């Protein structure tokens, strides 16, 4: 109840959520091209928001976020026309959560650069396992005929972005979130003052996997075909981390700012001169890491950002 009260009183959050929801009007007002842009934006907001729930809060930088997205896409693609979407999309989230729970115990034993590499390696491992399974049953790709319209998918994705934002916000304001920040600051001290670090890390890691699981399913439907190498592409993980860094993960608006910023860059350059786009992304990443490690959100709204001092 107190959590709900907190949300209703949080004007910044309410305005932010309202603006997310207002993107439902994009298809009608601006046409199908912008509907796809909006869908992409909501996808990245959901992914980045869910990434910050674990990696932003605990400082364990995961480079394997795509694995949950990929597994969700796989669930939806392989159960297409077998299960209704209102079952298969949430099921993608559940399966991603279960996968996170299973790998959490070994993966969360290591810290720092080892964790980064391990999450990356694990995502690649799962990718090749799925690839081999698919090849062995003779399905290098699957076509998904009769998927819902872009508008419908956009509405679902907006819902996911809202849920991801709310989840991250609720966690960051809770006792659980306090514990996660303590872990990020100094895990040994956290443990010393009673924070159940193992339980908390596993819980946060699992929670952060559920949203990408569902997002992956929706995106598989959007592209109307499923190809393993595409939905498990590690570039998706890199992009999420980049968006979180550039946008900032201490403020709910950070992931949105990061996603919007990179999408704008890619709108401007990707289609025409993709090399320039990659160079600019690299440059901005360096500039932000060095000069504004808490991202755009901390520059625009300094007082609210968690790390600003």
């Amino acid at each position: 109840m107190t959590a709900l009260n907190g949300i209703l009183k949080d004007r910044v959050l309410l305005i932010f959520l309202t603006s997310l929801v207002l993107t439902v009007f994009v298809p009608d007002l601006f046409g199908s091209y912008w509907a796809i842009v909006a869908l992409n934006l909501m996808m990245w907001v959901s992914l980045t928001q869910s990434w910050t729930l674990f990696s932003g809060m605990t400082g364990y930088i995961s480079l394997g976020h795509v694995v949950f997205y990929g597994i969700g896409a796989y669930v939806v693609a392989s159960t297409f026309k077998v299960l209704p979407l209102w079952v298969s999309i949430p099921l993608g989230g559940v399966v991603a959560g279960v996968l996170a729970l299973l790998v959490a115990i070994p993966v969360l034993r290591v810290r720092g650069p080892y964790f980064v590499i391990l999450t990356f390696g694990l995502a690649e491992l799962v990718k090749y396992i799925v690839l081999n399974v698919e090849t062995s049953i003779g399905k290098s790709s699957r076509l998904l005929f009769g998927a819902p319209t872009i508008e419908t998918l956009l509405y679902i994705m907006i819902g996911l972005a809202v849920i991801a934002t709310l989840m991250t916000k609720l966690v960051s304001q809770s006792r659980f979130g306090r514990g996660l920040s303590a872990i990020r600051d100094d895990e040994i001290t956290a443990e010393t003052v009673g924070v159940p670090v193992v339980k908390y890390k596993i819980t946060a890691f699992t929670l952060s996997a559920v949203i990408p699981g569902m997002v992956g399913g929706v995106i598989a439907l959007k592209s109307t075909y499923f190809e393993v190498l595409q939905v498990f592409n590690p570039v998706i993980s890199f992009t999420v981390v980049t968006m979180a860094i550039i946008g900032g993960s201490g403020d709910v608006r950070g992931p949105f700012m990061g996603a919007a910023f990179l999408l704008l860059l890619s709108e401007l350059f990707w289609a025409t001169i993709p090399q320039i786009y990659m160079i600019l992304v690299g440059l901005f990443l360096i500039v932000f890491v060095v000069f504004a490690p808490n991202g755009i959100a901390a520059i625009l709204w300094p007082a609210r950002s968690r790390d600003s001092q």
Partner: protein
Amino acid sequence: MNLLEVENIGKNFGGVRALDEVSLMVDKAETLGLMGANGAGKTTLFSVIAGHLKPSNGIIRLKGKTITGYRPDKVCRLGIARTFQIVRPFIGMSVRENVEVAILFGNSGYDSASSLGDRAMDILDDVGLQGLSETFAGKLTLSARKCLEVARALATGPEILLLDEVMAGLTPREVDDMIEIIQRIKLQRRLTIVIVEHVVKALNQLSERVVVLHHGKIIATGSPQEIAQNIDVREAYFGASDT
């Protein structure tokens, strides 16, 4: 029944035997001093009790219950709090937030009857840090950091407080202040304290009983006066026949 029992604890680091069959008992509301030269194993003993290190052998009991091998967070919630010799504050948080985390997660059973901030301020008052409550822990002076270690441990609501050289590096005046703080919180909260200190004066003033560790072994136990006159201890410290 003793509040805390350490029975035949051994700890090896590779070839180094940091603790060798250490046994000791701590009574309720007692203050036990732990002394010994550098590398004697004092910090290692704290780490074993608090769950940061698993002993190679031996048993730790709290109120008769075996707690050997429990994780630190569980040990903390059972009422044993430690400070770190090399201070470890949450540097990204303010002094008050450091203490709040300890209140929220410790043994004190936070019930939101009084506000978290108020409770944190009460504890900061007790250690004389109230004026620095909004300062970031990373920006504190050494003596303030040492006080914060004590405050954070205290905020977990412990029955037993393990203090590891909280006076090291302090000026004589600051040492006096710290002694007074420890005496006060001990009385207020009926705390049981195990204190490691190289400042002999502090150890003598605070402890009812002193245990001396040497190369991981207990070589003497007694009142501060007895220890001061103990010939083995002198040898261990001043190396008359150091092995």
